[in-house]
């Protein structure tokens, strides 16, 4: 389980970094999105992993060991919302840049055909 999650985060982050360094604005925004997925999964995982456990608590309340740590979930929710909003904003700027310069290069000028 740990290995699968770690591999997922790693692959997402690596692909995101690769795309972030590409010259097209669309690749950059997809790269940013992938990185934010990786970061969100990472935040989610810091609460610790348990397989086959109850989602919230089992039986009568009171045993604190039965609870999952709720804070990472709150953090990841905030991070998702903020990441989503800023990505949407970036998308608008991307479109404006496309409209003003006529191409989708990050520097606004297309060196390669």
């Amino acid at each position, binding site marked *: 389980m740990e290995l699968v999650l770690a591999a997922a985060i790693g692959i997402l982050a690596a692909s995101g970094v690769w795309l972030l360094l590409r010259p097209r604005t669309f690749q950059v925004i997809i790269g940013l999105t992938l990185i934010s997925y990786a970061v969100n999964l990472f935040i989610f995982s810091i609460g610790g992993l348990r397989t086959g456990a109850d989602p919230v608590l089992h039986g009568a309340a009171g045993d604190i060991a039965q609870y999952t740590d709720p804070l990472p979930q709150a953090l990841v929710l905030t991070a998702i919302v903020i*990441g989503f909003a800023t990505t949407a904003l970036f998308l608008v700027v*991307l479109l404006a840049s496309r409209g003003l310069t006529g191409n989708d290069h990050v520097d*606004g000028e297309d060196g390669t055909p």
Partner: protein
Amino acid sequence: MNSLLIITPIVLPLLVAALQLLMGEKSRRAVTVLSIASCVTLVAIAAALLMSVSGEGALSAVYRIGDWPARFGIVLVADRLSALMVLLSSVLALAVLPAALARWQHRGGHVQPLLQFLLTGLHGAFLTGDLFNLFVFFEVLLAASYGLALHGSGARRVSAGLHYIAVNLTASMLFLLGVSLIFGVTGTLNMAALAELIPTLPEHTRALLHAGAAILGVAFLIKTAMWPLGFWLPRTYAAASPAVAAMFALMTKVGIYVLLRLGLLFFGDGAGPSSHFGSVWMLWGGVATVLAGTIGMLGARDLAKLAGYNVVVSSGTLLGAISLHVPAVTTGALAYLVISTLAVAALFLLAGVFVPEGEDEADDTLQLEPYEQVGHTSMVEDLYAHEDESRVVVTPPVAMLGLGFLACALLLAGLPPLSGFPAKLAMLAPMPGAAANSGTMVLFAVIISAGLCTVIAMARAGIHVFWADPERTFPRVRAGETLSILILLGLCVLLSVWVGAPLHYLDAAARQLHAPAAYVEQVLPATEIQP
């Protein structure tokens, strides 16, 4: 009463901005009145907050949101440093407002609400006592800054804004990674609780904490524009409209503020095996930043870029100074922070005044030298060729601009008689005595030579702008822009005369920062229930 003073600087601009958005662009006069009223109130509140934390015995003020105990709830903390930063940003906003109203608000919508949102984010970041809220407020101020950076539109601005947003989104991801690593190790995000926990951490988790802190630090160093993370800054700031760039002069200082606060809280003298973590990196990073900024400044070909590289130089200077962890140096660094923010803001506004008005205004800046040499005569030859033929008529506005430029140069280079000198002196004088090692001496030498290079670069720019071209027609100087520049420079002049009390305050602020036990005690009283 105190709690009200802490929460208002965050809530007031938020409410005002929301109201301004609802009122829309049609009722521009009412929106303007609201902006002015909000900024004036903020300055008054920030001053009251500063007075309330600077009294004898009064350490800092804590506001527990929802009255939850600090380990569970969110706290806002105002100590001397926070109060100072809140006052600085309110004053800067009030000073920049006339310039924003004079010329730039007609170039696009919603500049006033965005300014208020920016203030919300700034004040929140200065006052929060919790790492995750720091992230949230950073995002608030960044989101507002994205809108402001793009204000006025134009291809140059949009392209620079695209880079700015991409860099800052990446930095935010690093911020989140760092925060979550620290949370994973310690189980808390409250700054005071972290400061208490870090000295007693078990050895096997300390490396992970350091990794988290380092990633978090990189996020702030990107905002501070440390070399090699700061290439986005000069271009973005030069492309932003002048009033916005003047406001952005404070944005790098937010990074410095956080590094100073967290560096001393988490990794100060009392942090056991973790003490002074990362300070070597910050020292050499600061040196490299000053060098890079100096080179950029000497090579800058338009006035706004020159101001942008000045921001880089002051960031580097501050990074180096705060990395030393010496109270006396921190005092000077705080003074330098205030003065350089005000002076750079004034320089950005001055650079904006010279931008010729016209259709392509959005993409136009004042170039000192053409990027592509057209003729064969250099500017210097022009200077001598025209010298005998034409009499230069100095009109009052031009004289005012010239004096303002001179004042900026003196302030930024740290020359007497203006306040840049005592600030730099207070920072540099204790350096050799307090921490005599090779790194400190290199930093000392680099800061001194950066001052010299600032004089050279500013003198060169001044010659080009005011002397070299007698044909240059100076644009009409608007009352609003003049007022903004006069307020900013007037404050610097005031601080040249009135040095004692502010320096005393900064000294107390630095000592407070270097004794984090009192901060922890204030936020987490011993009577609270332990988890």
